C-alpha cells in the first residue's frame, strides 16, 4: 500500500490527509465510467495534484448489459508528490454493478474502500456476473470497507422533481451522482465539472439533470453520515508552469502539428481506423487551419502509400496504426526505405498476435518494427516514455525523418495512448528548431546526391523545374537513382541504407543513468514502462540497493553510450511487456547476459512486480 495516512486533524475534525490515492471506477460500458474517470482526473489536476490515469475498456462497444466482458474501468492515481504510474492496486473501487465488482475486486487493496451501487445487485445481474449468491450478503467482502448505496434510487429521487425526462434518461445521470459523491469524499470542487456539463450538453433538461445529479451526490455524501471521514490530498510540489492534462494520443497529434509548423512543411496524415490509434486521426482532422490534411484511407496499405506519395511532394507524410496495421504496411515501408523518403509511421501497440487484445496494452511490436520487412530494410525507431512525452517524440520523429531522409517508426502503446498525465506546456522558444530544405538547384542534381555527413539524399519534389526524376522500388544506382542490377552496387546500397540509420546515433542525446553510474544491477526499459520501472528503481534505491536504470527512447539506432553503460554494471535486467524483444537485441548487439522480465497480460507492470524481480536478481 502506497498511501500513508497522517491523522493530523486540521481544520475539519473529519478530514484525513493522504499522500496518494488510487481510485478505480468500474461499471457497465454504458455506465459512463470513462467520463466519470476523466472528469475526476481533470478536476484533480486543476487542484494541483500530480496525477496519472489509465482507462481499461472492453473491445466491444456495448457488450450485453451487466455481462463480464462489458465491464469498463478507469483507474487514476493522484498525489501530493511526483508520481509516474496510475497505481498498482486501487485503494478505492467504485463498482456500479455485480460484473464490475467481480472483474475488479481482486485488484482492490486489502482493507480498501469499496463503494457499490446496490440497486444493480438484482438476481438477473448477479447471474450475468456469475455470482451464485449475493456478494453483498455472503461475507466475501469482509476484508474491505464496504459502502452500500442504492445509487440508482438516490439519483432518481434527486431528479424526479427537477426534470421531466424518461426514466432511462434519468438513470443515465447516475454516473454524475457517483462523481459528486466522490468529489465530497476526496474534497474536490464541483466547478470544473459543472462548467464542463454546461458546455457539453446543449439540451437544457439534460444539462440540468446532470448538474442536479452531480450536486445531489455531493450533498448526499456530506449529509447522510455514511462516510464518517473524508480525505484530502494536498497539492503536489510540481515544477512551476502552465499545465494541462493530456493523453498520449492527443500529445502525439499535437506533436505532429508542431513538427509541421517548425519544419514549415504541410502535414499529411493518412490512416485507417484502428484501436487504439484512431484518436490521432480524430484529433488531427480538427486542425485543418494549420493546413493539416487528413485522409481516411480504404485500408492500411493505402494509408502507408498515400503518406509516401505525400512525402514525395514535400509534405510531412505520416501514417498511424496498431500492430496488425503495421504488418499490412510492411511492404510499403520497404518502398519508403528504398526511395529514401521521410515518412513517419505511428504504431500504437496493442495485445497481439493477430487481432489479439485490441484495447489492451503490449510492447510486442519492437521486433516487427526492427525487422518486419523483406530484405535488409532498416528504419529508425523512437518510443515515447510517458503520455506527455509523446509530444516531443512526435516532433523528434519528423526531425530525424527529414534530416536523414528515411522512414521513422514511432512506437507508442495502448497504455500511453489512453493514459493521461499533466503536461507542462512548452513555451514557443523551448521548442526544438529544425529547418527542412527542399532541393531546387539543378546544377549537378541527381536524386541520390547525398549529404556527406548524414548521407541523406536530396529532397527534390514535383513542381520544381529541371529536377524531374524517377524513383521506385527497384534497386538503384547510388547518386543517379537509375535502376541497377549491378552486384557491387546492390551491396553498396544495402550498406548505405544501414549506414544512414546508424548515423542517426550521432544526432540523438546520450542516455542518462537514473541513479549511480555503476553498480550491481542496471534495469533497462523502453516505451511506456518508464513510470513503473523508474518508480520501482527509486524505491529500491531508497532501500539502499545499488540499482540504477536507463530508459531507451531511441531503439534504432541505440544511443552511442549504451554499450559503455552496460559495461559498468554486474547484471542487466530488461522488463518488457513482451517475451524479451529488447533483451534479445541487447544480447545480440552487446553480448551482455541481459535477463528478460516478461509480462504479456495486456496490463502494465505493477511497481511491486518489478521490485520483487529486482530483489530476486539483486540477492541472487
Amino acid at each position, binding site marked *: 500500500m502506497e498511501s500513508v495516512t497522517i491523522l493530523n486533524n486540521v481544520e475539519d475534525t473529519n478530514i484525513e490527509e493522504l499522500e496518494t490515492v488510487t481510485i478505480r471506477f468500474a461499471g457497465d460500458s454504458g455506465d459512463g465510467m470513462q467520463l466519470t474517470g476523466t472528469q475526476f482526473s481533470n478536476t484533480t*489536476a486543476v487542484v494541483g495534484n500530480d496525477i496519472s490515469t489509465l482507462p481499461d475498456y472492453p473491445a466491444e462497444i456495448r457488450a450485453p448489459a451487466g455481462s463480464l466482458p462489458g465491464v469498463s474501468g478507469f483507474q487514476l492515481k493522484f498525489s501530493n508528490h511526483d508520481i509516474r504510474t496510475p497505481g498498482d492496486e486501487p485503494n478505492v473501487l467504485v463498482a456500479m454493478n455485480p460484473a464490475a465488482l467481480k472483474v475488479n475486486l481482486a485488484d482492490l487493496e486489502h482493507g480498501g474502500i469499496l463503494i457499490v451501487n446496490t440497486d444493480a445487485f438484482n438476481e438477473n445481474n448477479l447471474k450475468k456476473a456469475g455470482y451464485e449468491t449475493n456478494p453483498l450478503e455472503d461475507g466475501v467482502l469482509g476484508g474491505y470497507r464496504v459502502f452500500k448505496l442504492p445509487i440508482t434510487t438516490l439519483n432518481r429521487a434527486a431528479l424526479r422533481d427537477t426534470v421531466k425526462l424518461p426514466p432511462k434518461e434519468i438513470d443515465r445521470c447516475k454516473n454524475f451522482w457517483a462523481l459528486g459523491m466522490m468529489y465530497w469524499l476526496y474534497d474536490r470542487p464541483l466547478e470544473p465539472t459543472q462548467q464542463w456539463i454546461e458546455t457539453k450538453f446543449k439540451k437544457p433538461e439534460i444539462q440540468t439533470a446532470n448538474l442536479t445529479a452531480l450536486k445531489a451526490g455531493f450533498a448526499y455524501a456530506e449529509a447522510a453520515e455514511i462516510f464518517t471521514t473524508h480525505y484530502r490530498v494536498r497539492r503536489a510540489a510540481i515544477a512551476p508552469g*502552465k499545465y*494541462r492534462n493530456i493523453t498520449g494520443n492527443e500529445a502525439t497529434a499535437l506533436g505532429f*502539428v508542431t513538427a509541421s509548423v517548425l519544419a514549415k512543411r504541410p502535414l499529411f496524415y493518412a490512416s485507417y481506423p484502428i484501436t487504439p490509434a484512431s484518436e490521432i486521426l480524430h484529433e488531427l482532422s480538427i486542425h485543418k487551419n494549420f*493546413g493539416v490534411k487528413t485522409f481516411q484511407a480504404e485500408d492500411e496499405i493505402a494509408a502507408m*502509400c*498515400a503518406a509516401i506519395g505525400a512525402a514525395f*511532394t514535400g509534405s510531412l507524410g505520416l501514417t498511424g496504426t496498431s500492430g496488425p496495421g503495421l504488418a499490412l504496411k510492411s511492404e510499403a515501408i520497404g518502398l519508403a526505405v528504398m526511395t529514401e523518403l521521410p515518412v513517419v509511421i505511428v504504431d500504437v501497440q496493442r495485445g497481439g498476435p493477430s487481432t489479439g487484445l485490441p484495447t489492451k496494452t503490449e510492447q510486442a511490436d519492437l521486433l516487427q518494427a526492427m525487422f518486419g520487412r523483406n530484405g535488409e530494410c532498416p528504419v529508425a525507431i523512437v518510443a515515447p516514455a510517458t503520455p506527455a512525452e509523446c509530444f516531443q517524440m512526435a516532433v523528434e520523429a519528423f526531425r530525424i525523418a527529414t534530416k536523414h531522409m528515411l522512414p521513422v517508426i514511432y512506437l507508442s502503446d495502448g497504455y500511453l495512448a489512453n493514459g493521461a498525465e499533466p503536461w507542462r506546456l512548452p513555451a514557443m522558444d523551448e521548442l526544438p528548431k529544425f529547418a527542412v530544405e527542399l532541393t531546387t538547384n539543378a546544377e549537378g542534381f541527381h536524386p541520390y546526391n547525398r549529404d556527406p555527413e548524414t548521407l541523406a539524399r536530396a529532397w527534390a519534389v514535383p513542381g520544381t523545374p529541371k529536377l524531374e526524376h*524517377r524513383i521506385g522500388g527497384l534497386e538503384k544506382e547510388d547518386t543517379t537513382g537509375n535502376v541497377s542490377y549491378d552486384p557491387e552496387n546492390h551491396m553498396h546500397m544495402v550498406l548505405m541504407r544501414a549506414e544512414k540509420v546508424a548515423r542517426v546515433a550521432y544526432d540523438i542525446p546520450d542516455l542518462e543513468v537514473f541513479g549511480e553510474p555503476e553498480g550491481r544491477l542496471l534495469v533497462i526499459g523502453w516505451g511506456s514502462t518508464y513510470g513503473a520501472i523508474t518508480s520501482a528503481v527509486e524505491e529500491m534505491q531508497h532501500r539502499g540497493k545499488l540499482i540504477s536504470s536507463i530508459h531507451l527512447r531511441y531503439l534504432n539506432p541505440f544511443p552511442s553510450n549504451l554499450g559503455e553503460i552496460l559495461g559498468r554494471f554486474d547484471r542487466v535486467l530488461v522488463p518488457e511487456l513482451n517475451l524479451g524483444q529488447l533483451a534479445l537485441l541487447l544480447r545480440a548487439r552487446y553480448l551482455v547476459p541481459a535477463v528478460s522480465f516478461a509480462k504479456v497480460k495486456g496490463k502494465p507492470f505493477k511497481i511491486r512486480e518489478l521490485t520483487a524481480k529486482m530483489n530476486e536478481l539483486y540477492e541472487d
Partner: protein
Amino acid sequence: MSANANIPTNGGSSPVPPVKLTRKDFVSDQEVRWCPGCGDYSILAQIQKVMPELGIKRENTVFVSGIGCSSRFPYYMNTYGFHSIHGRAPAIATGIKASNPELSVWVITGDGDALSIGGNHLIHTIRRNLDINIILFNNRIYGLTKGQYSPTSEFGKKTKSTPYGVIDYPLNPLSVALAAEATFVARSVDTFTSHLQMTVERAMHHKGVSFVEVYQNCNIFNDHAFEMFTERGVRDDAMIEIEHGKPLVFGKEHNRGVRMRSDMHLEVVELGNGVDESGLIVHNEKAPDSYLAYMLARMESPDYPVPIGVFRDVTKATYEDMLAGQIKTATEKMGPGDLEKLINSGDTWVIE
C-alpha cells in the same frame, strides 16, 4: 502560422509553357526495355506525342505506376515519376494529388496490377474523384511473371497457371470503374494511334478521375488477344466508336446499329427495310446516371460490336478541391493555425 506556405506550384503563371515543348522533351534518357513488338511502345509514343499538346509543364507532371510490364512506363517519361509497388499506384497517386493539387498526376497500371492485387485501391481512388488520370493497359495476361492468367483473361483460357483452362470469371474493367462511380470512363486500343491520342487528351482535360482502358497486345504471352475485332479487315463490322450525341451506327457500309429492346436488352440491327437510325440508341456520355454507359460497356465480341470511345464524362467536385475547401473554411472560421494557442488550449492550470 500556416504550414502550407511552401507547396511548390507552377508559380501562378499561365498553365501553358512559354516555349512549346515537343514529344522529345518528354522522352527520358532511359533505354526502353519492353519486348520488341509489345503494344506498350505504341501507348508510350502516343502519350509522349500528346503531352506537349496538353499545356502542362514537365515539372508539374508525375507518372505513378505499380508493378508489371506497363508499370515500367514512368522510367521512360522525362517528368517526375514513381515506380511503386504492386497494385498501390492509385494510393500513392492519391497522396501526391491530395498534397499538391497543382500537379498533373497519371497512374499507369495493368489488368493484374489494377484489378487483382490493387483492386481495392482502384475502386476507392475512383470513387473519391481525385483529378488524376488512370490508364489501364489491358493485355489479359500476366506478362512480367511469364504468362499466368489475369483477372481479365477469358473464361477457359489455357495459361501457364491454368493448363486445364481458367475457371474464374473475368472482370470487365469498365464495369468496375462505372460501379465505382467514375466520372470519366473511356476505352481505346494500342494500335489505334489517333483514337488513343484523342482519348488521352480528353482524359487529361476532364476535371476529376479519368479511367481509360487500353487494349494492349502482349505478343509474347497472349498474342492476337484482340485481333478478332481489331484487325483491319474485320474492325468496322466488329467494333463501334461511340460518340456523344450520335446514334450507335457501325459497319463498313454504316449499315448496322444498336438499339434497345423493350426488355432492356441491347440488340444489333441491320439498317434499311424500314429500320432507320431514329430507333437507335443515341450515345449520351453526360447522362447523370451511368446505366447507358454500363450497358454499352457490357457489349462484347462476338455478339456485339466492341465499343471504344468515351462512355461517361460527367462533372463532380474533386476530392482535393473539397479538402482544400475544408481547410479554407476552417482557416476562415478559426484563423490561421496558431501553435501557441493550440498547445495552450483545453483545461489548463498554472503552478506557481
